[in-house]
């Protein structure tokens, strides 16, 4: 079943065509890679899919629902999550609070309940905090629970970003360069985690990566963009054999 279907998507920024007529399909449960050299338009595609940017034309269907042009927070409520290339954590707050904020969508008590500390609110908070703690443990972040997120090394911040995105319980997670800035060991660990997410928790992943080696190991299907256009699409092996793809990278390939 196609969970995410992008058809002829075009995005413009001011006068620049960031994405032109890109189409791709992501099947449920798949780990799908989105690669391309710098400036290929990968982040723009993510921004358009998540509603941060209104597409110029084209369609984006998620779980059989047209989402192009819908407000970002509503798209997120359909089960579409993302992480950020430059992390975008809530730097002033602790790691625990960051992940806790991820659960916002799943808490339903109102302002009055919050103001008066009604049982509905306290119950929800207790439950959510427990879940947040478990999530921190799963990502080995418990040691940093009380550290302000902005003070952490970039690689650990990326982990927090992923944990936080998962708190929202997405069906499909768009990861924008999840291992950039990580050490070898951290990257390995992150890859293992991502595979686990897909296999054990059934979360569909779309991974934007610059690091070909990591991606080719991780992804089941790959879409290659170049200068805003679709270059090729297929299995990692097929892409590595594709001369146009290799040329586009011109030595970037690991």
């Amino acid at each position, binding site marked *: 079943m196609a969970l995410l279907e992008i058809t002829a998507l075009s995005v413009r920024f001011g006068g620049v065509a960031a994405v032109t007529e890109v189409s791709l399909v992501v099947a449920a449960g798949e780990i799908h890679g989105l690669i391309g050299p710098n400036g290929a338009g990968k982040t723009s595609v993510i921004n358009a899919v998540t509603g941060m940017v209104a597409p110029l034309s084209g369609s984006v269907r998620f779980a059989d629902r047209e989402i192009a042009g819908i407000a970002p927070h509503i798209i997120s409520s359909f089960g579409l999550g993302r992480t950020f290339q430059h992390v975008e954590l809530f730097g002033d707050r602790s790691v625990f609070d960051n992940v806790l904020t991820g659960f916002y969508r799943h808490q339903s008590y109102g302002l009055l309940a919050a*103001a008066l500390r009604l049982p509905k609110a306290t119950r929800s908070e207790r439950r959510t905090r427990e879940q947040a703690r478990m999530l921190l443990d799963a990502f080995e972040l418990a040691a940093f629970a009380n550290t302000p997120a902005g003070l952490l090394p970039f690689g650990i911040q990326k982990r927090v970003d992923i944990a936080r995105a998962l708190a929202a319980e997405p069906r499909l997670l768009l990861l924008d360069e999840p291992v950039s800035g990580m050490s070898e060991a951290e990257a390995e660990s992150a890859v293992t985690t991502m595979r686990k997410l897909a296999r054990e928790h059934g979360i569909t992943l779309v991974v934007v990566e610059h690091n070909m080696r990591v991606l080719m190991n991780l992804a089941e299907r790959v879409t290659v963009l170049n200068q805003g256009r679709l270059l090729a699409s297929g299995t990692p092996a097929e892409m590595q054999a594709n001369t146009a793809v290799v040329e586009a990278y011109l030595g970037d390939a690991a």
Partner: protein
Amino acid sequence: MRTRVLLILLGLALLAGLPLVATSYYLYLAELAMINVIIAVGLNLLSGNCGQISLCNASFMGIGAYCSALCTTRLGLPTLISLPASVILAALLGAALGYPARRLSGLYLALITLGFLELVGFVLEEFPDYTGGIRGLKVPRPEIFGFSLQSNRLLYFFVFVLTVGAIAVGYNIQRSRFGRAFDAVRQSPFAAQALGIPVARVKMIAFSLNAAFAGFAGGLLAGVVGFIDPPEFGILTSIQHITFIVVGGLGSIAGSVAGAMVLTALPEVLRGVQEYGELVYGFILLGTLLFLPRGLVGLVARLEALRSAKPPAKEPAYGAP
């Protein structure tokens, strides 16, 4: 953090015991300070936590004050109705402002709040048949179930209890998912949206909440001071309110309490050099902005870090109470 909580409790205990030793003048001063605390708590949620600049906080205070005053004097309603009415009216108008403001930020947000401030001032002055205009309005003491709080001590306790309640509500909201949403909107609206937080709606809620606190404080102010007039609710007062939270510590409940109390007491301490009062105020604001960005709360945290001989690399979490 524990030090901070202890300090607050100590302060509250002192306040509770004040009527036993203080003259009515100092009780009055403390009442003003507590009303300012309510203002500061509300404003900190909007500006400190949610990061929305608002130059019209004094307007919501004025709206609450006039609503309460008019309900009492013109409509003969009891305090227990006119005070909640002030809160509700202020909250509604806060939402009304928050609606257009939700898409604005920084400069344009400051401007629209400035416009709102002037508009409210205009209404207060130009409709004297309703508001008493420049001459102002006299307001009777609050009364509970027909019993007027003429006794200074009773009035004091009334204000004290309401202030503690307001602090508790502010603290509860800050620790709830709403407080987290506010901080998220301030620090990264993109990440917030990706997590399903409706940024525009959250901003509106923040504005409405802030207005409610300010309106509540205004309603109390009217009864405590006994007289209100439009100049009290102008730009100068708004800046004073912002000074409370800047000096106290942005995003911190403890900071709101500390800043409001210290700055209300300050003109008293500067009694001898009264005329320099305004100038000193301005320098305190400027100095805090330039050198003490985390306000008094930040200062306390730095001292804590020094005392426990830890390297001050771990700055305290911003929104901690």
